[in-house]
């Protein structure tokens, strides 16, 4: 029987998840919850789903196997907790919550209830980043001593304050909405830092939130990390995320298109030669069963449904792993405040 899916939040991500979940074999969207009566009335008229303005009502009717939550981050905790208590598997958009304490509580609850718990850090499903992680773990770079993560894009390029993304209390801002992807990818490659040695969060056009975040990470004594993100960079067509890792045997530069690996002499690894090597996404990415906006969006939901079917709790992007990301975001905020607050939190 198909997995019955409920969607909470029918904005850009919610509708994208709706289409993918509905198109993947073995799953069907049967209910949608949103506060916009307009969106609901369109769906009711044209698509065979039940619509709700209250997620508790949607969940307690008991027709769902899982929910996908794509609402402003500040609402994630309550909604996820409620769904887990009603024994639903939960996929929630990134970041998990605005507080590491809440994220850890959700992770513990999900484990206790043996419910699949996944967060939408979709970059982990891009084959170039997966290959980068494999290479780092297999020791192709030797001992990794430095890692750098950066992301640039044009999300806020003029003054505005009109949606939740520009309001700190709801989880808007470059830190939780943008830098979180880079922090999560750095964690994916080398594990989370133990400390944030310094951070600055800078407002550029926003009134209430930061538009650029810079931070220095410490990983015990063995490694240092550098984070730089800026979502007010109008020279970049769309979000561009790059990770660079330096090791004793070489250097790796990876983005969603290409993985470049430099290996020092006598350090060849598998079919990677000494000097520069390139692998393109076209060489690495596995096909998906439905395509919308990028393989990673389908791959992550396919993995979520597969974990539900198999009962595998050791899946990618668990709440426990997202908790580590939220913990680092919190350390960045604290380091920024210790520096006198910077431009804006």
């Amino acid at each position, binding site marked *: 029987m198909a997995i019955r899916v409920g969607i909470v939040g029918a*904005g*850009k991500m919610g*509708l*994208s998840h*709706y*289409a*993918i979940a*509905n*198109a993947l074999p073995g799953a069907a969207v049967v209910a949608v919850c949103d506060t*916009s009566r*307009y*969106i609901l*009335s*369109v769906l009711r*008229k*044209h*698509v*065979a789903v039940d619509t709700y303005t209250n997620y508790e009502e949607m969940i307690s009717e008991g027709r769902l196997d899982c929910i996908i939550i794509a609402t402003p981050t500040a609402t994630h905790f309550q909604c996820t907790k409620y769904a887990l208590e009603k024994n639903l598997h939960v996929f929630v958009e990134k970041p998990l919550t605005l507080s590491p304490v809440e994220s850890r509580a959700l992770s513990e609850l999900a484990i206790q209830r043996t419910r699949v718990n996944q967060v939408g850090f979709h970059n982990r499903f891009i084959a170039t980043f997966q290959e980068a992680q494999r290479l780092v773990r297999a020791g192709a770079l030797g001992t990794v001593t430095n890692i750098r993560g950066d992301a640039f894009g*044009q*999300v806020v390029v003029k003054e*505005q304050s*009109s*949606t939740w*993304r520009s309001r700190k209390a709801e989880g808007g801002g470059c830190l939780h909405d943008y830098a979180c992807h880079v922090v999560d990818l750095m964690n994916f490659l080398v594990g989370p830092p133990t400390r944030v040695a310094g951070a600055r969060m800078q407002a550029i056009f926003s009134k209430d939130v930061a538009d650029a975040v810079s931070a220095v990470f410490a990983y015990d004594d063995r490694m240092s990390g550098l984070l730089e993100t800026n979502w007010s960079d109008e*020279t*970049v*067509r*769309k979000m*561009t995320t790059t990770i660079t890792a330096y090791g004793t045997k070489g250097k790796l530069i990876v983005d969603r*298109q*290409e993985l470049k690996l430099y290996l020092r002499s006598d350090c060849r690894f598998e079919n990677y030669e000494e000097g520069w090597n390139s692998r*393109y*996404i*076209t*060489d690495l990415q596995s*096909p*998906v*069963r*439905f*395509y*919308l*906006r990028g393989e990673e969006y389908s791959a992550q939901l396919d993995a979520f449904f597969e974990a539900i079917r198999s009962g595998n709790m050791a899946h990618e992007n668990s709440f426990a792993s997202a908790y580590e990301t939220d913990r680092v975001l919190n350390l960045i905020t604290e380091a920024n405040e210790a520096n006198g607050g910077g431009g804006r939190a």
Partner: protein
Amino acid sequence: MSEEKARQQLVRFKDTAAIIEVLDIAYDMGIRTFMCTTHDRIGEVCDHMRADRARYRNFIYYPCMPYAHKYANSVSQFGVLETIQRFSTGGVVNTLLRGAMGTLTRDIYVLMRLLVDSEMKRFEGLNTPVIFVQNVVTDLLLGMKLYSVFAEFDKYVRERYGAEAGFITMNLPMLLDALDQVGVENPIVCSNINKIGFRMTGGIDAYLEALRTRRCRPIAMSILASGAIPPNEAIEWVCRLEGLQSIVFGASSAGNIRQTKELIECVWGTAPLTTPATPS
């Protein structure tokens, strides 16, 4: 396309004159059809063509709408409702009160017509025999099973613009089934078709079978699979596919256009070609 290549193209095509120059090269080589997104700058290209009708008499546009980035950014920033207000044609919607607009656009077909009209304004007076829906929208509707919108779009562009509908997709076999269900016959469909099966969702075999057995008019795009296949090998393979008659390719230099055209003509003889030139 890599960000660096995109940046170089942006510098090179900073002036619309540079875009027109490439179009002129393609046109003078006998390529008559130009597939373009409804990017804001296409309006300037259209103005140029309108001003010299004699020269561009045989020029054919295949508009592909919407230019997804502007809508996606706007939905994130302003939400769905305000995005609709921002992009639909002035007089019709902006004078309506919010509540009234809600009622009007609740009918998704009315909304679709408003958005099509708004995108088509800049092509007024030009030859647009096929109007395409971009893959991000086609595939969103496909996944949500809003198939009736495909049929309504097909009907609307026929009635209002005397054009045929085209659908760009990354899920060709699935889309053909959906179009069948709502009675869109012999559809014009544009999808990745390349030797390595890159972004051919459903698998290369399902695509080849669809080309052989389904009644449709396919256009191959991304034949080089983002540069993963050498041009001669890519074109030789794609041109020998049973059931395929059209190719769309991106090019920005005379040498590139000539090379691609010659490679295709090696297998096909002379054939109608399409070429895009705005950033997609």
